[in-house]
């Protein structure tokens, strides 16, 4: 029974993604990169190993050329995918969990709890993230854990804000009010009544936060705040900059990595494009209306269109 209902939700998601062209494209891109992250490293050599003359342009033996240290760029990009995506998705999920915990608590309890938590949320929203992340990361031993930690600290507030607002509006609805009156436990109300109304929003937030996490992670690593010995997209770019690849004209040392970052970010954003419609129902109305007119070979017009199909 339980499994069955979960199955249907999953199929609803698949259906939603399949219907939206943008979301389909996004899902395909992300699928390919997940495949590269999981299987890719088995097909390329050791990314640390110097395998040729430094800064060699792409050739048959090194499809994407070599770095300033003579390492294979392709191997670095592929191996970097694994680490960057892993950190990105983990941080994306944790950031939303923290945001949900704080946002839902604030929205559910209201009163002074809300006042205090809202203030905290707003302070973290207004303090610029990257400089804060840098200051924190600089004090901690470099590595994926530190990176994850600072990304969570600087990233949770936005999710908390959105989920707080959502909780506030759900809280006002009758069925929740009724549950509160009948004295059901808070945990039960939140998990049974409130969370289910927000699943779409939370999934959208996880995707959005992953985009944030990958971008911010790359930025910090580029600054040299990551562990420069591990191979990730960010450290690839760090070394490219450090080895003055630009001045040597070695575009191949940074172009492939950047393209991967952008493709993943773009894919996730496209996957999420359908979710805008959750928070802004007008977008969905507009889209179905337009699709219908399009199906009849008509363009949208400013005044209510007349399509004589009822006669």
């Amino acid at each position, binding site marked *: 029974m339980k499994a069955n209902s979960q199955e249907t939700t999953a199929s609803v998601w698949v259906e939603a993604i399949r219907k939206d062209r943008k979301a389909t494209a996004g899902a395909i891109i992300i699928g390919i990169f997940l495949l590269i992250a999981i299987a890719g490293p088995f097909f390329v050599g050791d990314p640390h190993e110097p395998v040729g003359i430094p800064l060699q342009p792409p050739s048959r033996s090194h499809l994407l050329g070599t770095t300033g240290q003579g390492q294979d760029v392709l191997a670095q990009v592929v191996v970097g995918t694994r680490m960057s995506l892993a950190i990105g998705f983990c941080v994306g999920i944790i950031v939303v969990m923290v945001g949900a915990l704080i946002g839902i608590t604030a929205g559910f309890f209201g009163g002074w709890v809300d006042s205090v938590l809202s203030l905290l949320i707003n302070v973290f929203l207004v303090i610029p993230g990257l400089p804060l992340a840098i200051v924190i990361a600089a004090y901690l031993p470099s590595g994926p854990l530190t990176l994850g930690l600072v990304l969570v600290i600087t990233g949770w507030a936005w999710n908390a804000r959105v989920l707080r607002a959502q909780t506030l509006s759900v809280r006002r609805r009758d069925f929740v009010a009724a549950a509160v009156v009948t004295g059901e436990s808070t945990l039960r109300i939140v998990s049974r009544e409130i969370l289910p109304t927000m699943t779409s929003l939370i999934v959208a937030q996880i995707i959005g936060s992953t985009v944030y996490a990958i971008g911010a992670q790359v930025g910090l690593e580029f600054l040299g705040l990551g562990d420069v010995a591990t191979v990730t997209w960010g450290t690839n770019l760090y070394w490219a900059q450090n080895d003055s690849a630009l001045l040597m004209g070695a575009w191949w040392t940074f172009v492939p990595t950047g393209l991967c970052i952008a493709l993943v970010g773009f894919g996730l954003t496209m996957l999420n494009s359908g979710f805008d419609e959750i928070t802004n129902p007008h977008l969905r109305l507009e889209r*179905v209306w337009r699709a219908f007119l399009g199906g009849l070979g008509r363009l949208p017009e400013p*005044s*209510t269109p007349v399509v004589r199909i*009822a*006669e």
Partner: protein
Amino acid sequence: MNEPVLKIENLSVDYVSGETLVRAVDRVSLDVKPGEIVGLAGESGCGKTTLAKAILRILPPPAIITGGKIEYGGKDILEINEGELRNLRWQKISIVFQSAMNALNPVIRVGEQITDVILAHKSVSPDEAYDRARQLLEMVGIHPIHINSYSHQLSGGMRQRVCIALALALEPEIVIMDEPTTALDVIVEREILNQIKDLQARLGFSVIYITHDLAHLLQFSHRLAILYAAHIAEIAPTQELRENPLHPYTQKLMRAMPSLAQSEVKPETIPGTPPSLANPPPGCRFHPRCDRAIEICRREKPPLVEKATNHLVACHLVS
């Protein structure tokens, strides 16, 4: 002489909903004569607002007009271009929205919202337009000082009056009023109703007055149309309808009316709920709630037929 100014024929309006269409107005015909107050009554969700906005073609997505004719001044509003539409809008036909709160732009002063329509259609100076706006506000009983107010600074009743003043700004031939008094308390409601009546008598415009409250309409409309689930159930002169309602739904509406005269008689309620427009019942749409429904009601849609002079009704029991 008594040719209608506006003739709606078989108008259908649909909302695109996913892959299907929801018909919110289904082959509705209605005409309005000069100086006439036509009432349009029906339960919530039966398509009143949709019909009203369709006349001016201002329904936002996902609405589409799927058929019919709206004749005004020898032309079909459904066939004219944007330029002609702009000339017709407000100069000939204006509208008072259901919610004055949402109808006024919160970040533009009331004065500008009145004068811009005057300036758009008449060749007058901004000063003259402002004078006119002040007059209009006074006409509906608002102190002209509020010309500089924003809508959130006005009370609900004042906002509604501003909307009425706005609708009369260009002295149109027809004013559509979509539940102009909902969300107001009874006293303010009565005041505004009287005001509308006075203004109408003085200025002579036609009114399409929409409400779910039949009692109002029985008092001051000339003719009444009853809408049920996107269909016209019955149309008749008010007097005739009051004395001789033919459709079972109209009869029930009448009995559901709280009558002041016999306050000890409890008003009846109509059992059941209106059907969903996305999935309407076959045959007569009222049959699931009709205690006199017969076999044919479940199968066939009753046509709208004229039973007495100007009294049209769509019911198998009557024909």
